[in-house]
């Protein structure tokens, strides 16, 4: 069971829209879509040739959604020619005019081209010589998040931006740091790593200051620095918290955003304003749906005065959600229709920087609530396909779940099961991707430790802002004091940042060493348990060999006797001897195989992993390791004794696992169980297996907030359970929580690595999508239960 949250942050300003609004196409420019950009660029001969320049810009705006201009070598060569002709300002505006629209084209090749271009640009303009060059670099780095995020290159993105973060930190370049952390936050959010995402957005906020850069470049590229960016980060954090189910916290961030917004000189553009108020309305709607109208009115006003068409579409979508919460289905449907028509009229994409614009989903929700289930599949399926193509997993999960529920209501159980299976596959993919993303960057991982401090700082700030409302009367005095405090805080913060940075570097080195030590420890854990095994193996091999040798000797003797009996024509004796010979032969074969299995499992255990999953008989594996463990312990400690038995489900299906890994886990648990019963009266260890049909898919309401939703694995599937129980003294409560933590051990120093259970935990949960739980009761024993999915 795990929770999900919105993948799509409302990202900042819609650059293209801003671009259009600030630089409307010159009326004089004659646009012909059949023109070619390289020819238009070629027409620009001098810096003063504004007509040619404007024509090129206009052409880009008109044709922007059809071609990836970054592809074209002719365009690229014209651009490099213009670098020497146009002044910096015009030149970089031209570059961005081409880059922005090209980066949002939804074909894979266009995405790759945009990524490639951004990386090359960053390399060639690493040391900007002018303000416009610097802003262009920042804007491209920021905008390249979209092709990275919306393609399979997201992990490359994490790596690349983490490297940029490290470099920017070395250069103490706070502008670049704020952008890079912002992009990383978006990546992690897409991967459902909420805490990491939040950390990076807070970090991004931290590198911003309260000065709004006094040049139109900042506005033009979307307010990437200063207060307008602060507003954006607060908005993102607010939406993130709401999606994560902490609506009050979300509201606090949004109100902090409003505070920053009010500090901005009104001549500056802040594209997030409308969406921020819309989210305030959304928070209010979730907290108090029936009294949220007022907030929606404000949001609508802001949308009308400051918003884009995208803001309007989202306004009506949220309105629909609000009406749905209130059971006003007719109003909800009207709002859905408005959102849909805006989306279609302005050709807005389904996956926007603000998240999913999903008229079909909300339409279906209305239909679901009206018990009109049969229309839902037709409504949802096209939208689901678009979401699939855009890697929009969060929205996909919502829609697939709704689709499955609709099929269930219709009574089409085959399609319901197909939908659930697809949903389950998606969820497995998400979990495993999140796991790999988690380990992708060690450097960033470390910094998480410092993050909590920053969060506390921000929360305080948010609280304080609320309080100031009560003290408006003393505002004059407060202003003076707060100005002084701000300066002090700023200086302090800078100082503590420096300290934090050097501390982080130190931590980095220490953690690198720790990681290498950890690898060694994992290796020695493997070797230690192998050592424990060896004695057991010796015993277990001698026993079958005893039979192999003796029965084959016996057969030689019996053959001699057989010859004699044949010679004497003693038919009865011949029949007897042949029966024995044949039975012995079967036993030789059986015990030979037994020895072979033991050697195999020993080799498996010592192998270094990277094993492949194969259909495995868990019963045989459990039985074998139980015996090995017992004899191993007996060999080491003569005084040790315990009853052991198996209760194995004879119909247990084979499951696809990495046998050496599961063997390791089972052996580990059995070893622990035997250790736990030492000195107990009538010690006993039982290993049992059974197959478990999972509960049918949990039916639940739809999460309008996009908030936490249960994602239990679908019904119709079953898993198997392996239980290792002992009748020892149980695990004390204070230890129980820690047993799966790495390096936790109750053994004296030097005797246990404390990695056994944590490795087991990883193998089961990460390696096999299974579960491992513990049930324990004082003085009556402990049960470790492993569940493994069958498919």
């Amino acid at each position, binding site marked *: 069971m795990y929770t999900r949250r919105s993948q799509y942050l409302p990202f900042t300003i819609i650059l293209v829209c801003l671009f259009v609004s600030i630089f409307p196409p010159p009326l004089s420019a004659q646009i012909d879509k059949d023109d070619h950009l390289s020819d238009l660029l070629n027409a620009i001969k001098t810096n003063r040739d504004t007509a040619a320049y404007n024509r090129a810009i206009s052409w880009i705006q008109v044709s922007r959604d059809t071609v990836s201009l970054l592809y074209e070598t002719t365009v690229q060569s014209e651009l490099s020619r213009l670098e020497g002709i146009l002044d910096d300002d015009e030149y970089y505006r031209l570059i961005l005019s081409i880059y922005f629209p090209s980066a949002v084209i939804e074909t894979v090749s266009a995405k790759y081209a945009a990524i490639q271009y951004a990386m090359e640009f960053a390399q060639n303009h690493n040391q900007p010589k002018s303000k416009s060059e610097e802003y262009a670099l920042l804007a491209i780095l920021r905008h390249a998040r979209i092709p990275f995020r919306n393609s399979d290159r997201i992990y490359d993105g994490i790596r690349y931006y983490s490297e940029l973060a490290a470099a920017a930190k070395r250069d103490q370049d706070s502008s670049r740091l704020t952008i890079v952390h912002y992009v990383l936050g978006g990546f992690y959010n897409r991967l459902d790593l909420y805490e990491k995402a939040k950390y990076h957005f807070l970090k991004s906020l931290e590198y911003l200051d309260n000065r709004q850069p006094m040049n139109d470049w900042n506005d033009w590229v979307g307010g990437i620095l200063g207060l307008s960016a602060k507003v954006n980060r607060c908005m993102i954090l607010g939406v993130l918290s709401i999606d994560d189910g902490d609506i009050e916290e979300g509201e606090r961030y949004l109100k902090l955003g409003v505070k920053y917004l009010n500090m901005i000189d009104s001549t500056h553009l802040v594209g997030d304003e409308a969406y921020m108020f819309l989210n305030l309305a959304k928070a209010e709607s979730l907290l108090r749906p029936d009294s949220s109208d007022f907030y929606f009115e404000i949001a609508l006003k802001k949308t009308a005065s400051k918003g884009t068409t995208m803001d309007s579409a989202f306004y009506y979508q949220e309105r629909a959600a609000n009406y749905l919460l209130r059971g006003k289905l007719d109003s909800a449907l009207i709002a859905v229709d408005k959102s849909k028509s805006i989306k279609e009229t302005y050709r807005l994409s389904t996956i926007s920087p603000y998240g999913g614009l999903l008229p079909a989903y909300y339409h279906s929700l209305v239909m679901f609530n009206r018990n009109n289930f049969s229309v839902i599949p037709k409504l949802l399926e096209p939208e689901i396909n678009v979401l699939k193509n855009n890697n929009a997993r969060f929205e996909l999960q919502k829609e697939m779940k709704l689709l499955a529920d609709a099929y269930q209501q219709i009574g089409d159980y085959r399609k319901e099961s197909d939908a659930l299976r697809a949903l389950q596959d998606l969820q497995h993919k998400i979990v495993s991707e999140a796991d790999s993303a988690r380990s992708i960057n060690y450097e960033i991982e470390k910094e998480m430790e410092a993050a909590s401090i920053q969060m506390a700082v921000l929360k305080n700030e948010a609280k304080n802002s609320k309080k100031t409302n009560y003290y408006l009367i003393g505002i004059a005095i407060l202003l003076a004091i707060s100005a002084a405090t701000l300066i002090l805080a700023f200086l302090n913060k800078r100082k503590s940042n420096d300290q934090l940075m050097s501390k982080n570097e130190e931590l980095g080195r220490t953690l690198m060493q720790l990681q290498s030590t950890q690898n060694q420890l994992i290796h020695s854990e493997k070797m230690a348990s192998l050592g424990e095994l060896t004695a057991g193996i010796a015993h277990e091999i*001698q026993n079958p*060999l005893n*039979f192999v040798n003796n029965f084959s*000797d016996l057969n030689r003797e*019996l053959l001699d006797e057989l010859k004699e009996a044949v010679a004497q024509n003693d038919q009865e004796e011949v029949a007897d001897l042949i029966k024995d010979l044949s039975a012995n032969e079967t*036993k030789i074969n059986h015990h030979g195989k037994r020895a072979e299995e033991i050697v195999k499992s020993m080799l498996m255990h010592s192998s270094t992993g990277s094993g492949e999953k194969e259909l495995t008989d868990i019963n045989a594996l459990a039985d074998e390791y139980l015996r090995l463990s017992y004899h191993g312990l*007996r060999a080491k400690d003569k005084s040790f004794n315990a*009853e052991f038995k198996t209760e194995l489900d004879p119909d247990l299906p084979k499951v696809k696992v990495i046998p050496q890994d599961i063997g390791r886990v089972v052996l580990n648990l059995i070893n622990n169980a035997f250790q736990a019963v030492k000195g107990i009266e009538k010690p006993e260890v039982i290993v049992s297996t059974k197959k478990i049909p999972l509960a049918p898919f949990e039916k639940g309401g739809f999460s309008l907030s996009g908030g936490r939703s249960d994602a239990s694995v679908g019904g119709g599937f079953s898993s198997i359970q392996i239980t290792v129980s002992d009748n020892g003294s149980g695990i004390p409560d204070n230890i129980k929580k820690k047993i799966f933590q790495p390096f936790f051990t109750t053994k004296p120093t030097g005797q246990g690595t404390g990695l056994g259970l944590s490795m087991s935990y990883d193998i089961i949960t990460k390696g096999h999508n299974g579960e491992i739980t513990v049930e324990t009761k004082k003085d009556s024993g402990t049960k470790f239960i492993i569940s493994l999915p069958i498919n």
Partner: protein
Amino acid sequence: MKILVVDDEKDVQPMFQQRFRKEIRSKEIELEFVFSGEEALAYIDKHGHRNSLILSDINMPGMSGLDLLDKIQKAYSPPPPTIMMISAYGDKENLDQAQSLGAEGFFTKPLDFSLLKEKIKMLSS
């Protein structure tokens, strides 16, 4: 002579029966099988210990062969002769302990039956 074989491995039974088929036919010896130390004690308790020899494995779940040896030595006077069958590992230690507990002999697995027969002959004479 009656030999009580104590081993948790079930295939010990056909192995011994065939190995001693001639001795069984000529009624020189009689074989009984139990599969744990506890069963062995119950058997001796029920059938008496006279004129019998115990041949026991050491590593068994529950009561070990050495525990069985110890209990027999303490419970009966004179105790029935007991021979231990031991695996290759931990030889020295098991051997020492069996000896100090009063075992009459030790055989490592895989068992050499010609030697075992010699030993039984010696003990029964």
